């Protein structure tokens, strides 16, 4: 995958713990009135070339998700691999929104072909589409994964900075009335114990404190530890299509977070006339609230 002149090339994948520390420092500085938040997104694209897959880490990831430990990378694993590069964009001093507390709204992925664990990969990440949302401001974080000269995987994650207004003078967007949730016929259940956040953090490197334990989550204003969105996404994609062989498209929209420990009732169904598309829903049977909706389509 060829770069664009002006790409900020990082020497290696940045470590996520250091990025989280930088986010905390930035938040503190802004709270103290120093380094006021800019109003636009940085044009920067961050890039890391020649990433090699750690086979032991890959195996741990695959086994935690219950997917077969193939020599082929799970689609969600490519997101995990690219995530530190995206995080390095979001923790730039000129990035306008506070990273901590940002809510992950959705992910949409187009994968052109399956990717082998032995291909060196290039990752580019950038942010775009800063726009108002009923509850604050949202933006897209785009990550692209390339192998050789081709782009093989593109992901677009939508994040929301709750309560942050681009133009404080503008009237707040009207919140759309959501239709009441009608649960489909269940086909399965995910029983998530209190340690799943820590175990997924260990295989994904995403040690965001809101996923690790009750106390660390409460410190950041959550009621309890919540499951990683990408954990839910990875399980959804794997369960929908067990053995992808070609292109793969998927999308997940997150609703109420999954509090840990917790039970997610799931429904997987082939979309009628959907050309092999599988629809997925995860919800809380007890609270009758959706946790996520999504779909996966394999060619």
């Amino acid at each position, binding site marked *: 995958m060829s770069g664009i002149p002006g790409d900020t090339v990082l020497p290696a994948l940045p470590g996520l713990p250091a990025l989280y520390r930088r986010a905390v420092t930035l938040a503190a500085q802004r709270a103290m009135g120093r380094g006021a938040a800019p109003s636009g997104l940085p044009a920067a694209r961050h890039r890391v070339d020649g990433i090699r897959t750690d086979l032991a880490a890959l195996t741990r990831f695959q086994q935690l998700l219950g997917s077969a430990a193939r020599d082929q990378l799970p689609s969600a694993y490519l997101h995990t691999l690219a995530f530190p590069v995206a995080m390095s964009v979001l923790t730039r001093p000129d990035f306008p929104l506070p990273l901590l507390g940002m809510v992950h709204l959705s992910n949409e992925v187009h994968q052109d072909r399956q990717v082998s664990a032995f291909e060196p990969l290039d990752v580019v990440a950038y942010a775009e589409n800063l726009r108002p949302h009923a509850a604050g401001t949202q933006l897209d974080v785009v990550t692209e994964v390339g192998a050789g000269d081709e782009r093989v995987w593109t992901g677009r994650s939508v994040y929301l900075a709750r309560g942050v207004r681009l133009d404080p003078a503008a009237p707040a967007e009207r919140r759309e009335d959501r239709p009441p949730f009608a649960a489909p016929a*269940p086909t*399965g259940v995910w029983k998530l114990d209190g340690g799943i956040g820590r175990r997924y953090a260990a295989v994904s490197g995403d040690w965001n404190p809101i996923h690790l334990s009750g106390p660390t989550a409460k410190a950041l204003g959550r009621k309890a530890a919540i499951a990683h969105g990408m954990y839910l996404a990875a399980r959804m994609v794997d*369960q929908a299509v067990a053995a992808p062989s070609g292109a793969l498209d998927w999308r997940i929209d997150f609703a109420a977070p999954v509090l840990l420990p917790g039970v997610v009732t799931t429904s997987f169904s*082939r979309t009628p006339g959907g050309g092999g598309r*599988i629809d997925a829903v995860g919800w809380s*049977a007890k609270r009758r609230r959706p946790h996520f909706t999504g779909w996966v389509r394999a060619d």
Partner: protein
Amino acid sequence: MADQAGAQNTAPSPRTAVVIGGNRIPFARSSGAYAYSSNKDMLIAALDGLVARFGLQGERIGEVAAGAVLKHSRDFNLTREAVLGSALSPETPAYDLQQACATGLETVVGLSNKIKLGQIESGIAGGVDSASDAPIVVSEGLRRVLLDLSRARTTQQKIKALSALRPKDLSPNAPTTGEPRTGLSMGEHQALTTAAWDISREAQDELAYRSHRNLAAAYERGFFSDLMTPYRGLTRDANLRADTSLEKLATLKPVFGKGLDTPATMTAGNSTPLTDGAALVLLGSEEYATANNLPMLANIVDAEAAAVDFVHGEEGLLMGGVHAVPRLLERNGLTFDDFDFFEIHEAFAATVLSALAAWEDPDYCKRVLGLDGALGSIDRSKLNVNGSSLAAGHPFAATGGRIVASLAKTLSEQGGRGLISICAAGGQGVVAILEARN
């Protein structure tokens, strides 16, 4: 998709495989009479009785095939070890097979095929299961630490491996009846199917009641006298409630499907309990039976396996047999009218009732099974006439041997043709046709 549709079996059947007889031990409720008996113990007990009944002491049987669903890793060669612990010739080969609850029936299918092909003259097929003496495994965390420890060379590596051990890793894991891919127990899966087919509580209790009544009646008339060997003080299936009534069954509280929007209807009375036991069938060629002056109860005609996509909600988990039966009937040019006995394994009363409802539904049969219309109705008086798993219990891998032996004996007494359908975990089902010899 339908790789065998329309392919009526025109190839000449090489030879006939016959059921000579069977033997099982009474089925015990888990943690009951066989609480301390292992799978090998029970399989040998069933084998001893079969050997004694048919005078097989010192004989080299063509092959013995059996299996267990819940199996210790030390029992990797369970069936061969049971043969070595029996009075059969130690030169009798054996293999283990596992296809969940269809294990027993699949061993019958496999060995009867070998007999038909002339590869063996005789075979013993069946299975065993213990829910009491279940294998308990160490936690995944402890297992990893122990394996890493065994690979460690230096003291430093050993310390590093051990340092990964956490207190919670010390609690062991017991096996569950949960489907690995969906996380739902078999009962919860059936509850979804029960709701989808709108199977009533009353119909389920009625089926359970008939199962107990039919099994009790079979005991009363001595039907099992040459199909069973007492073991550990049991002479009858411990789960049998000869005095149960619809009123008693109606008082039981639902145990599955309580989280659904539809009323929960499945109780401990109309679901099979966890059970311990073993069952075996003696099979042979006509030449073998004649030469050894052994009875021939029934012919094993044909069999079919099917599997369904329950992961994406396309079909109910225990509906595999529903798909296998029409394929088997078509290949053999038969309809339900050609059968005198139906043995549909009662995993849950609702499993049987869902199958019956599905086969009677023309829309479902067209849309899902690819038929021209409804497959047909089954006369309840022909269904599970000597009781089935609700009354007898269901030691997973033993159920196939129990059903094949009982149906073969029924056919030898009353003539006709019988259909067996057994559902299994993983969305599977195995079905077979047996025929009387005259």
